[in-house]
C-alpha cells in the first residue's frame, strides 16, 4: 500500500511540476472544444476541420514558415473544464492564439484571462458580452438573423403559410435567434402565433408542437441544433399534422437526412453552400468549397462538411492575418485579423474589421430539402 501511495503521489507531483515544452519553429494554436457533452457533434467537426486545414497549410510551409501545431482540450461542454483547459494551453503549452469551438459558456468564462494574456480568440460561438473581451474575440458564427430571414423568405415566396410557431432551445445563440424571429416576422408578412421551448435532451415534443398547431401555425420554425430536430419531425408525423412544415436551423447533414426521411418535402432546412456542393456554379465560392472538400472528403468521405468548413475558414483567415501582420504575436494578429481583406471561405464570405468582429456579414444560407437520398436545394 505505501508503494501505491508513493507512486500516486509521484505521478501527481510530476504532472504538477511538468514544465512547458518549447518549440520555437512551430505556431501553436489552442482549441477548447466540447468533444463530449451537448456540443460534441459540432465541436468534433470543428476540431477535424481545423486539423485538415493545418494539414493543408503545413503542406505549403505552415504559417510564416512555422509548422502549425494544434493543441486541443476537451471542455466536456462545461465552463469549468473549459477554464482549466484554457489555463493549461496558456501556461503549459504556451499557445499563441486560440481557435475554439461552440461552447459559448466555456469561451465566455475564459475570455477575461485570455484578454489579459493579450491573445486573440477565434470562436465557433457567439462573442463574449463585455466590450473589452470582444476586442480580442472573432466569431465565425453567422449572425442569427441570417438563419431566420431565408426561412421567412421561403415561406413568403413559395407557400401560403403566414402563421408560424417558434420552437427553440434556451442556448444563447438560439435565444438571440428566437428574439430576431419575433422581430423580423412582420417584415415578411408573417405572424408568430406560438413560442414553445424545449431542452436539447427532450425525448418528446408533441405537447409543444400540439400547442403550435392549436394556435393555427402552418410551419414550425425550429431554432436549435441536434437530435431534437428528428424528434420534432417524428412528433409532427405522430400527431398526424400532414400539412405542417418543419423548418430547421443549420445543423449537421446527418440530422437533416434523418428528419427528411420522416417528413419528406415538408422538412426544410437552412444550409450553407458547402452542404449542397452540387448546386454551386463555377466561381470563387465553388473554388473555395472544392479546395476544402479536397482535403475533407479524402479524410471523412461520409461526414457532413458544414461545421468542418467553418473551422477550415477560421484557419485560412488566421493564415491571412499572419501574412498581413508579418508576425504571430498576439496583438499584431488581433489587429491584422481586423485588416484581412474580404475572404471567400468554404462556408461563407468573411469581412472582419475593427467594427465587425462577427466575420460573416453576407448571408450565405440557402433553403435545402432531402430528396432522392441526398440534400438538395429546395426550389
Amino acid at each position, binding site marked *: *500500500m505505501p508503494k*501505491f*501511495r508513493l507512486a500516486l503521489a509521484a*505521478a*501527481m*507531483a*510530476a*504532472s*504538477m*511540476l511538468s514544465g*512547458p515544452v518549447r518549440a520555437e519553429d512551430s505556431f501553436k494554436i489552442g482549441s477548447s472544444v466540447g*468533444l*463530449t457533452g451537448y456540443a460534441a457533434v459540432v465541436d468534433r467537426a470543428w476540431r477535424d476541420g481545423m486539423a485538415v486545414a493545418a494539414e493543408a497549410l503545413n503542406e505549403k510551409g505552415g504559417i510564416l514558415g512555422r509548422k502549425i501545431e494544434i493543441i486541443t*482540450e*476537451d471542455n466536456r*461542454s*462545461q*465552463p*469549468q473544464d473549459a*477554464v*482549466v483547459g484554457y*489555463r*493549461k494551453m*496558456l*501556461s*503549459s503549452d504556451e499557445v499563441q492564439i486560440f481557435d475554439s469551438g461552440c461552447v*459559448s*459558456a466555456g469561451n*465566455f*468564462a475564459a*475570455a*477575461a*484571462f485570455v484578454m489579459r494574456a493579450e491573445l486573440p480568440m477565434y470562436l465557433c460561438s457567439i462573442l*463574449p*458580452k*463585455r466590450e473589452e*473581451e470582444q476586442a480580442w474575440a472573432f466569431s465565425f458564427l453567422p449572425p442569427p438573423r441570417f438563419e431566420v430571414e431565408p426561412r421567412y423568405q421561403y415561406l413568403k415566396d413559395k407557400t401560403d403559410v403566414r402563421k408560424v410557431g417558434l420552437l427553440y432551445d*434556451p*442556448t*444563447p445563440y438560439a*435565444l438571440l435567434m428566437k428574439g430576431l424571429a419575433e422581430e423580423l416576422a412582420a417584415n415578411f408578412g408573417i405572424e408568430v402565433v406560438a413560442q414553445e421551448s424545449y431542452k436539447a435532451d427532450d425525448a418528446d415534443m408533441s405537447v409543444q408542437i400540439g400547442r403550435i398547431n392549436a394556435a393555427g401555425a402552418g410551419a414550425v420554425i425550429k431554432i436549435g441544433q441536434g437530435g431534437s430536430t428528428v424528434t420534432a419531425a417524428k412528433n409532427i408525423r405522430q400527431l398526424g399534422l400532414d400539412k405542417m412544415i418543419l423548418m430547421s436551423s443549420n445543423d449537421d447533414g446527418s440530422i437533416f437526412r434523418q428528419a427528411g426521411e420522416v417528413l419528406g418535402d415538408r422538412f426544410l432546412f437552412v444550409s450553407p453552400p458547402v452542404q449542397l456542393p452540387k448546386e454551386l456554379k463555377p466561381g470563387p465560392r465553388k473554388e473555395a468549397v472544392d479546395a476544402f472538400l479536397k482535403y475533407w472528403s479524402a479524410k471523412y468521405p461520409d461526414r457532413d462538411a458544414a461545421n468542418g468548413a467553418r473551422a477550415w475558414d477560421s484557419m485560412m483567415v488566421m493564415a491571412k492575418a499572419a501574412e498581413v501582420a508579418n508576425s504571430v504575436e498576439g496583438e499584431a494578429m488581433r489587429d491584422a485579423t481586423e485588416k484581412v481583406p474580404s475572404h471567400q471561405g468554404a462556408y461563407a464570405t468573411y469581412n472582419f474589421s475593427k467594427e465587425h468582429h462577427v466575420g460573416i456579414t453576407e448571408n450565405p444560407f440557402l433553403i435545402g430539402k432531402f430528396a432522392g437520398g441526398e440534400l438538395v436545394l429546395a426550389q
Partner: protein
Amino acid sequence: MIPWRTLLPIAAAIVLTGIGLLSGSYAVTVLGFAFIYTIFCTGLNFFMGYTGQASFGQSAFAAIGGYGSAILCADYGWGPLPALIVTMVISGIAALLVGYPTLRLRGHYLAMATFALGLIVYEISIEWTSLTQGYMGYSGVPPLSLLGYELGTVEQQLVALLVLALFGIFISNRLRQSRFGRALAAIAGSEAAARALGIDIARCKLIAFVIAALYASAAGSLFAHFVGFISPEVFGVTMVVQSFAMLYLGGIGTTWGPMIGAIIVSILPEALRGLQEMQDIAYTAILIFILIFAPRGLAGLSSLFARGKSRKLEEA
C-alpha cells in the same frame, strides 16, 4: 500538542499549494477548484457523513451563492465579502424553509426530494433569464477582495481559498466534537436510539442541513469570484456527481476526507490528460480501483497505520 494526523493534512495542503504556485496558472486553477469543492464537500459531509442523511440537492444552494454574489457584485457594485455573507444568509433561510417539510422524509425519499430541489433551482437558473441571464451566464464578477485589497491574481486567490478551506474544515471539526455533533453521530447511528436519549432529531437534522447549505453557498460564491463568470451548467448534475465522487473517495464521515477527495478528483483527470480520448476511461478505472481497495475512502487508510502499529505492539 497537535497530533500528527491533524498536522499532516494541513502541511500536505500547504506544500501542494506551494507546488501549485511554482507551477503556473494551470496548476493554480486546478487547485483553486479543488479547494472550492473542499468547502462544498465539507458541508455535504456534515449532512451526509456526520448525520447519516442523503442530499442530492446541495448544488441548489451553491447556485444561490454563485448567482447571488454575481448579481450583487456585477450589477449592484457590492464587495465580494458582503455579497458572500448575504448570499450565505439567503441560502440558510432557503434551506430552513425547504428543509422543514423535506426532512420529514427518510432514506430514498429524502434523496429524491433533495434531488428535485437541485433540479428546480437548476431550471430556474436557465429559465429566469431576466435575473440569471440563462445560458448567456453572468460575466464580469470581480475577484475576491479582503479589507479593500483585491486579490487580482489567481495565485493570491489560491492562497485565500486554501485558508478558507482549512477554516471550513476547522469549523466543521469543532462542530463535530461539540454536544450537537455527538447528537448528530447518535442520529447517524440509530434515530430510534437517539430519540430515546432525548435528542430532538428533526431540529438537529434541520440545523445540519442549514450548515451544509451555508458551506455550499460559500463554495458557489467563491466559484463565481474565482472564475469571474457563472452559468447554469456549473450547478447541474455534474456538480452533484463530482461532489459525491469526492466525498466517497476521500472518506465520508471523516474530517479530511472531503479535502483529500476534492484534491484527488480535481488533479487526477489533469494527470491523465495525455491519454486524450482514453482519459475518462482511465480516470473512472482508477476511481473504482481506489474505492475497491479503500472502501472507507483514502482518509480511512490512516486507520491501517494505527492497526499496523497496534499489531506490532501486540507482537512485541
